[in-house]
């Protein structure tokens, strides 16, 4: 009823294989895009932009990246934090070395730098997989963070080892540094996210994505039908790291403004993004959005409820938050291993048939 596809005829293959084949979905999507680009900038206040929406957008990019690696290509990585750090430090070095370079180009380049580092640390995936690979990516996590905290060149020999983003402008609006307004921060993150999501969606349904999924489902069979595992795995690492690098660059330059490798990009960040992917749904673009939303907005809501609403001590709320996140991971793995995305699919199925049971 609500979610009708009757009368929605397709006359070409292109129309049939579009991302949102159902009209209702498509309009919903256009509406959401319009709302995000036109309405949100007008209504958003500083607290919501800075504390919730901007980190949500940034982490969604990271979750998209990790989802390509884990969800589509089946390679488990625990080095997300370090790859974000590569993006952040790459962005910082480029920003300070070429002050006149446009910040958008800088961030994209930071993504490319991260992609090449990601390929380097993805090389072991050619020989090992599963949690053996996870341990190998942990090596990247610890080594890169050590490198960034110990090598003064990366932080331009600043005495404290902190990197801080100078002010850069896009169309005359500062997007980084303390003078950046909430709206401009929101807009630049939103633009990057939309482009990244579009890229991810189209990569994963193209031949590259099919190769990744073939490797994920059964690597030997994939090789026999002509998928080159070397190419498939390394491209997955490259694309995934590219997204994660962009997320790291945005996190540092736009959101945090100043960062320190060990503190801002530690292993807990790797786990956070991993959890987003698990809770959101492995192998789903929508899942990345859902997971990031859940893990960024959820704790804030919980904090508002417990601390401001019930007047509980802040530490208790923080402990409960860790506990609840852990429990949710377990619940999702047990009840719905494919995450929120699978729940959403079920709901959509039900909506299509509603009010009839089948």
């Amino acid at each position: 009823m609500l979610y009708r596809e009757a009368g929605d005829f397709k006359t070409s293959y292109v129309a049939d294989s579009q991302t949102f084949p159902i009209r209702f979905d498509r309009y919903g999507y256009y509406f959401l895009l319009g709302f995000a680009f036109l309405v949100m900038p007008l209504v958003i206040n500083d607290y919501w932009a800075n504390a919730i929406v901007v980190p949500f957008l940034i982490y969604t990019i990271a979750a998209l990246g990790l989802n390509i690696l884990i969800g589509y290509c089946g390679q488990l990585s625990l080095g997300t934090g370090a790859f974000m750090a590569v993006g952040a430090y790459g962005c910082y070095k480029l920003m300070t070395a070429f002050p006149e370079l446009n910040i958008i180009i800088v961030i994209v380049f930071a993504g490319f730098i991260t992609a090449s580092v990601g390929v380097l640390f993805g090389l072991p995936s050619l020989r090992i997989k599963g949690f053996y690979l996870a341990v190998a990516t942990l090596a990247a996590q610890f080594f890169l963070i050590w490198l960034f905290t110990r090598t003064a060149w990366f932080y331009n020999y600043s005495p404290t080892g902190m990197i801080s983003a100078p002010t850069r402008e896009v169309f005359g609006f500062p997007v980084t540094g303390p003078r950046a307004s909430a709206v401009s921060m929101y807009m630049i993150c939103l633009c990057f996210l939309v482009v990244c999501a579009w890229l991810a969606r189209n990569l994963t349904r193209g031949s590259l994505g099919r190769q990744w999924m073939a490797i994920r489902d059964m690597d030997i069979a994939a090789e026999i039908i002509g998928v080159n595992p070397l190419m498939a795995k390394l491209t997955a690492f490259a694309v995934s790291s590219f997204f994660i690098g962009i997320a790291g660059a945005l996190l540092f330059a736009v959101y945090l403004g100043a960062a320190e490798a060990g503190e801002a990009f530690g292993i807990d960040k790797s786990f956070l993004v991993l959890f987003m992917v698990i809770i959101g749904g492995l192998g789903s673009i929508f899942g990345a959005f859902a997971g990031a939303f859940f893990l960024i907005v959820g704790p804030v809501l919980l904090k508002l409820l417990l601390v401001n609403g019930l007047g509980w001590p802040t530490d208790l709320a923080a402990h409960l938050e860790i506990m609840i996140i852990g429990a949710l991971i377990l619940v999702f793995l047990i009840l719905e291993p494919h995450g929120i995305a699978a729940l959403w699919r079920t709901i959509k199925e039900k909506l299509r048939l509603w009010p009839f049971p089948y």
Partner: protein
Amino acid sequence: MKMTRLAATLAATMLAAAPMLADTLHFPNLSYRTGPFAAGGIAFADGYADYFTLINERDGGIGGVPIRYSECETAYNTERGVECYQSIRNDSPLVLQPLSTGITYQLIPRTMEDGIPMHTMGYGRTSAVNGEVFNWTFNYPANYWDGASVIVNYLLSENDNSLEGKKIVLLYHNSAYGREPIATLNTLSERYGFQLVTIGVDSPGQEQGSQWLQIRRERPDYVVMWGWGVMNPTAIREAANIRFPMENFIGVWWSGSQQDVVPVGAAAHGYKALAMHGTGTDYPIYDDLRRYVIEPGKFAGTGDEVGSVLYSRGLYAAMLAVEAAKKAQEIHGVAVITPAMMRDGMANLEITEELMTELGLPNFGPAFSVSCQNHGGSGAAMIQQWDANAGEWNLITDWIYPDRELIMQMALEDSLAFAAENNMTPACMN
């Protein structure tokens, strides 16, 4: 039904999160009671909260306006720190006290934009002493570079004013915080001819086997520590293990509290640390605290921390904040002050010995005054030594003054570099 109620509560809290314009003085605290550095954060936050409770209960607030105290959990994490900052910045916070050098660096440019004063007491960015550049940041009564200089001055006095040929190891927390004193110590080592060896410990630092083997090989005369959290007790234990003489082991003020020495037990006896204020419950103010806060059960946390070093520091920080608020009320002649007025109060703060006695804290902290140019107070600190048998810290020196000339010069260079980076013209705000 349950869901609706939950949703209703949630909606109500969202509304409640909007700024309140009541006649209160809002003192937020970006505390951390969880995470790897919780042990220190809890004690400080309890002291900070208890003093405000005392003022409310005993005096009915500052100048008749009640204090509204709020806490936001950062877990020593800069991202959460930013979130906390955003959640309170429109709620007219009078002064921020983030208790984290990392968060301080993050907030300095933001508070400058938003016009919110920040007090980073004995931590944060040292060059904020230059109030002409860092108009909104205050780090009285002492900063890291003062601390390094005080330690060297203390060692000088112990060694007949000569450190020629001595070897000093700096064991530091490998973060923005731990790296702060390196430049100062380098300069001082050139001046006084001692050899400085710096050894970093990565956060959190519960494993320092190699570092202490290295210290054992180096055979230094003194070890100076810039540690925080679990790094401190681990280092003290390792020092005891290699039989490093404890009286030659000196920590900064963040490495000298009960949490750092008690877990080590008797082996920590004789360990020294800087003290920027007194400690223990032998001050008249504790009579009032007991009467108004502790006995009625209005204390923060579990009440275990009362009188500990970091509790005293929280108390001291709150005391300085309240005095600055009083000053601001006096300057502007209004009772309900704004953050901008609070800044004026802080910039004209004057702490005298008489005032401290009057507040029930005689000889607790140094007498100092803040000016527009100097946001750093006097920089003086004492040395305290741990007595493991009695389980208490004893002050073993009087106030030792740092080499302020050198520090001011270094701070000036650093702050001017910051001003140049951000296209600012150093000037007083008034």
